[in-house]
């Protein structure tokens, strides 16, 4: 443990030492993972440098595993390192990083029109009291992937509600008679993805994390009923394997890809591997918006994720850095990323571009984001990691039947209130 802390300090020191190199000319360092946005980096940097003579941009490639890059940023930012100038942040860090004073407010750099063009629910995750701290780069969210061939075989319409998902699962599982086939799989291990799942379920029943008065409402009747459905899917309906409690996104994706599940609820990144030429389910699946509960057709149930670009509050070239952010999140750059790299734009106006008519996949993704629900990271700020941890623990308690759903969510509400000092 102590050595790890020493290591962290060493990394921070190293980052500080690199910094002065970038001070003289307008040299910007931008960090982002290569799986996340690698396809767009070189052309965007070239175009930006051409439009801004005297400014050069270096791409610092960081891990695509959010937990890993977070540690790198936290140690560097803690040491007030001015590098990187621009960095990609996970939507759930925005509130925390802003509150710690690590991000430069962008209102003075980005025009009102640009800000108005961003996806509002996504932007809200990076906005505190009207101040915008990061600009949406690309959005992803959870969707309900389903085996179109199996639904067709049994003459089942694409389910819109959880009740229909459960019924369809039972019909297909009984019809196929294959003990290796499950109805529904997702990421219910004790990870951030579990909390996203829970928000999808409860959001689909009309529940919200905070009520209209800003009070913690995780134990509302709607929330309890939705969570109970998750528990029942495992133990009563038996359409979900016990192993879901240890599944991360890729575990669930693997099962679905092997043809062992009818439904899968995870983020859009699985679309590429599922539709790859050597995928056993290629051409046999499709996706739709996350289900809602009967009687709540307008409920928001797409748990949103995604990445934003932020400017380091200690950057020595804030003006140029903000320009870079503006360029990456501009209409043209986002349209190119959407058309060429299937990156769902963080701006809503790009979806209406005429060129997008052929981008049916992205259009469909965009429809689902319209019913998006974001995690309560903006309002909880630097306490978000704790809030999320409490939710993950208590949801897991309910899913393992260590506690009743009501008890688990009551405990969660009490703990969150105490964390938030209410």
């Amino acid at each position: 443990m102590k050595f790890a802390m020493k290591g962290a300090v060493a990394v921070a020191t190293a980052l500080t030492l690199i910094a002065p190199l970038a001070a003289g000319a307008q040299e910007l360092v931008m960090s982002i993972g290569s799986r996340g946005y690698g396809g767009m980096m070189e052309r965007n940097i070239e175009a930006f440098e051409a439009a801004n003579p005297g400014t050069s941009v270096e791409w610092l490639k960081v891990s695509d595993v959010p937990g890993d890059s977070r540690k790198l940023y936290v140690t560097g930012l803690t040491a007030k390192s001015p590098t990187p100038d621009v960095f990609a942040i996970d939507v759930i860090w925005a509130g925390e990083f802003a509150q710690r004073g690590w991000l430069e407010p962008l209102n003075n750099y980005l025009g009102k029109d640009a800000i108005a063009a961003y996806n509002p629910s996504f932007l809200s995750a990076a906005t505190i009291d009207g101040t915008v701290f990061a600009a949406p780069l690309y959005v992803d969210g959870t969707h309900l992937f389903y085996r179109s061939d199996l639904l067709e075989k049994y003459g089942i319409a694409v389910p819109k509600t959880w009740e229909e998902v459960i019924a369809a699962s039972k019909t297909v599982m009984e019809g196929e008679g294959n003990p290796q086939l499950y109805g529904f799989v997702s990421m219910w291990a004790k990870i951030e993805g579990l909390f996203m799942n829970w928000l999808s379920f409860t959001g689909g029943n009309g529940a919200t994390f905070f009520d209209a008065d800003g009070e913690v409402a995780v134990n509302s009747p709607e929330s309890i009923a939705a969570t109970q459905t998750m528990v029942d899917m495992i133990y009563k309906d038996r359409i979900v394997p016990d192993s879901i409690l240890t599944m991360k996104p890729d575990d669930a994706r693997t099962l679905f890809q092997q043809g062992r599940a009818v439904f899968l609820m995870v983020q859009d990144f699985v679309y590429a591997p599922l539709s790859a030429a050597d995928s056993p389910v290629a051409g046999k699946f499709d996706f739709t918006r996350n289900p809602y509960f009967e009687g709540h057709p307008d409920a928001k149930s797409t748990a949103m994720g995604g990445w934003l670009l932020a400017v380091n509050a200690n950057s020595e070239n804030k003006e140029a850095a903000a320009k870079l952010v503006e360029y990456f999140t501009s209409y043209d750059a986002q349209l190119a990323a959407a058309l060429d790299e299937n990156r769902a734009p963080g701006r809503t106006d790009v979806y209406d571009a005429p060129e997008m008519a052929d981008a049916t996949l992205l259009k469909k993704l965009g429809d689902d984001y319209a019913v998006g629900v974001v995690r309560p990271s903006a309002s909880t700020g630097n306490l978000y990691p704790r809030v999320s941890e409490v939710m993950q623990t208590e949801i897991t308690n309910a899913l393992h039947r260590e506690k009743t759903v009501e008890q688990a969510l009551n405990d969660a509400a009490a703990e969150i209130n105490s964390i938030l000092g209410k």
Partner: protein
Amino acid sequence: MNRTMNLEQRTALTGIGFVTPTVIVIALILIYPIIQSVVLSFGQSSIDGSEPYRFVGLRHYATLMGDGRFWNALAVTFTFTALSIPLELALGIGLALLMNESFRGKGLARLAVLFPWALPTALNALIWRWMYNSDYGLFNAVALQSGLADRPINFLGDTSLAMASMVVVAVWKTSSFMALIILAGLQSIPRDLFEAGRMDGMTKWQEFTQITLPLLKGPILVALIIRSMDALRTFELPFNLTDGGPVNATESLSLYAYKAIFDFLDFNFGAAVVVVQFLVIFAMSLIYVFALRNKD
């Protein structure tokens, strides 16, 4: 300057000269962080220095005492230690006795026994995580196909099975370490003791309980100290195997401290956890040291 320094004094001075650099390095990398942890645990400060260090006394320790998750982590750590150490010891003695016999392929057997110990714990944990997997893991494939189980067993996802599964990995991995130390002890037992015993008509069992075991007490205690300290600060195994889950059924003290520090960025509270852990291990070592002294 006293030029009539005698030989003894000069030897002492040379010795001090040789030892000093080591002592300084150890003080810097071992003692300083310990003191720093204690200081952190009694205060409130922000990691970026925006909030200056403020002494808050026992506040973090008071929070700790009322924190169910801390008590759970403490219980998990003790349970893990109490379950894995005796099993490792029993298996270790068995392996050592086996390796002490001469038989064909003895070298190969010793190598095989040492193999799990030689691999990094993180790798071991990943290998076992795959074998435990309930959808495509080895154990479930065998259990299901042989009819031993009619539905997949979720070894790492079941609150009651996860700890047992973790203990199995620990025993598999570290029994060979116990065996190695005990083997060294075995080989230092004079052969003539056994000859004398045989002349007195001792059975093999009597030889083991009355000659081998009493003479192995030293090495066994050494092995126990080292392994208990390891087990009390176990981190890589739960981190890579279960990440402390399901719920918090396998969250050890080290893992809890890690999460407090690196996930919640609460260095002060995390430091308090680390200090308590340090005290627990320190107390455990003292008990062993006294045990060693009395038994000698």
